[in-house]
Each structure stands twice: as structure tokens, then as C-alpha cells.
């Protein structure tokens, strides 16, 4: 196979899927029902991306126990975010809890 052709084809497909709506610009208007549906996209996408990373960090079984540092770090981040509503603090304390827990388990 010609890998350069393969890669450039992939590039074209990717750019078209990424930029399609941006390129059509304000000529597209979404009906209210679709807009309402799209309002749920961010929360669903981000949650769908991180839940498997937290609950099944080794891409095998679900690890719903205290020896899972991803779970501890995520719970701390959620608690901090609920309490202080500060994104930077959420990231810093969540990461700190994760690394501290990993170190403590070793």
C-alpha cells in the first residue's frame, strides 16, 4: 500500500468532518429542537471520555475500589469542584490526590 496516499486521504476525511459545520458558516441554522439536543453534547462527550478512564483505568475490568488512584483522584476533584467551584483548584487538588494515592500504594 502507498502509505503517503493513505495518510493524505485520512487527512482530507478528518479535516472535512472537523470543519464541515464551521465552513458552511451562518448559512446553516439549526432548528430549536436540534439546538436543545446539542446543548447536551459537551456534558455527555466529556463524561463519556473520562468515566472509562476513571472506573476501568487498565482497560479491563471495572475497578470500583479504594486501591484505584484514578477513582480517588476523581472523587477528590468532584468534591473540590462542588465545594469551591474553582477549576484550577479542582485540577491541582485532584492531581495531587491522584499522585499521592499512587505513591502511598507503592
Amino acid at each position: 500500500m502507498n502509505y503517503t496516499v493513505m495518510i493524505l486521504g485520512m487527512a482530507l476525511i478528518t479535516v472535512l468532518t472537523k470543519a464541515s459545520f464551521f465552513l458552511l458558516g451562518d448559512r446553516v441554522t439549526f432548528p430549536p429542537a436540534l439546538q436543545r439536543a446539542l446543548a447536551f453534547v459537551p456534558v455527555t462527550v466529556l463524561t463519556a471520555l473520562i468515566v472509562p478512564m476513571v472506573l476501568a483505568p487498565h482497560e479491563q475490568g471495572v475497578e470500583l475500589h479504594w486501591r484505584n488512584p484514578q477513582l480517588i483522584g476523581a472523587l477528590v476533584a468532584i468534591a473540590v469542584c462542588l465545594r469551591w467551584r474553582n477549576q484550577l483548584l479542582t485540577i491541582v487538588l485532584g492531581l495531587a490526590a491522584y499522585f499521592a494515592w499512587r505513591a502511598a500504594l507503592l
Partner: protein
Amino acid sequence: MHTPRSALLEGVRDTLPMLVGAAPFGMIFGTLAVGSAMQIWHGSLMSATVYAGSSQLIAVGLVAGHASLLLIWLTTFVVNLRHALYSATLLPHVAHLPLRWRAGLGALLTDETFAVMVGHYRLHPQHSHSHWYFLGSAGSMYLNWQSWTLLGVLFGAAFPALQQWGLDFAMVVTFIGIVVPQLKQRPQLLAALTAGAVALLGRHWPYKGGLMLAILAGVAAGVWAHARTSTVVQEAA
């Protein structure tokens, strides 16, 4: 955020955790690309032109499995479909920009920059320099990805244990900081719970099918809960 320059720098700053989170994946991709049937420079060519981590990693796997060109292109399309959802979601905020801005920002869109921009537009729905902030986020992600891919290509074989560093956890806590404040409304909470559950159940499905279905199921649950809430309110009134 008073000048284009300060908006650009704030976009870079708010993307920093994502830059850290993407680093191990860039190196892993570079390493795998070197180990495949492709030539050494193909790894960097793919990062520079395709610029979509999941598709790139899957393509390397398909090349190793001797998949046909058509299958590789079809898979690329399916795996990247979620980006069409992202650009549809962000469109109202960029529709007024000139074509070259929309084309450039669209081509540079990623999961990470989408997350950062959702947070940004929530705080600043009307800001005249938001496209510079967008460029700061997307541009720094792009340069970051190229650098780490190149490092992976050059030194990949020397770093076999990258996945165990756990730096991708920076992405998890960042997403939590964006999602949790939005869960005050019940439809959003239901949408998130549904999406999370389906993503967990479908995490082994090929071609990110579980992720795509999780998004659809979550949106459907949210729309259903929203419609139900509105009906109750109307009846009460």
C-alpha cells in the same frame, strides 16, 4: 483578555493541562508508527496532516493488520464523526468569523480544545477576542502534538513504560472541572450519567463505537428529561 495577544496567551494557559495529558499519547503514537510497516517520517506526516490522535493510533493498528485502504478511510470517518458534533455545537460562536478563521479553527479542533472552548464560552458568551483564545488553545495543542510525536518517533523505543506515568489523569480532572458545575440541572445530570454508563459498558467496542453511542444515548436522555420537566411546568402553570 483585552487584546488579541492576551486572549491567545490565555487560550494557551487554559489548555496547559491538556498539553500535558496529550504528551504520552503523542509519544506512544510516534513509537508505534516507527514500529509499523510505514516509513519513519510517515508518523510525523500523519500527525501534521491528519492530526486526530484516536484515528492515528487506530490507523497504525489497521496497517499492522493489513487492512484495506477503503477500510482505513471508512474507520477514520467513523472515529472522527464526533468532531462534526463538536463543530456543530461551537458553530454559533464562530459563524461570524471570516472563512479562513473558520477553516483554520475547524481543522485544528480536538477533544481537548472543544472542552476548553465550551468552558470559555460559558464564562464569556460575548467576547470580541474569543477566536484568538480559540487559536491559542488549538494552536498550542497542534504544536504540542507535533513535538511529542516527533520525540516518540525519534526516541520511542527507549520509553516503553509511558502509559504507566499516568499523566493523562490531568485530562480527567480538567474535564471534571468543566462538567461538574453544569450538573445542577437535572436533565444535564441524567445526560451525563447515561453517557458515562454507556461509555463504560461499550469501552471495548471497536472504532470508538461505544463513545459514539454513549454521546447519542446521553443526549437522548437529556432531551427526554428536559421535555418531561417542561411538560410538568406547563401543567403546573
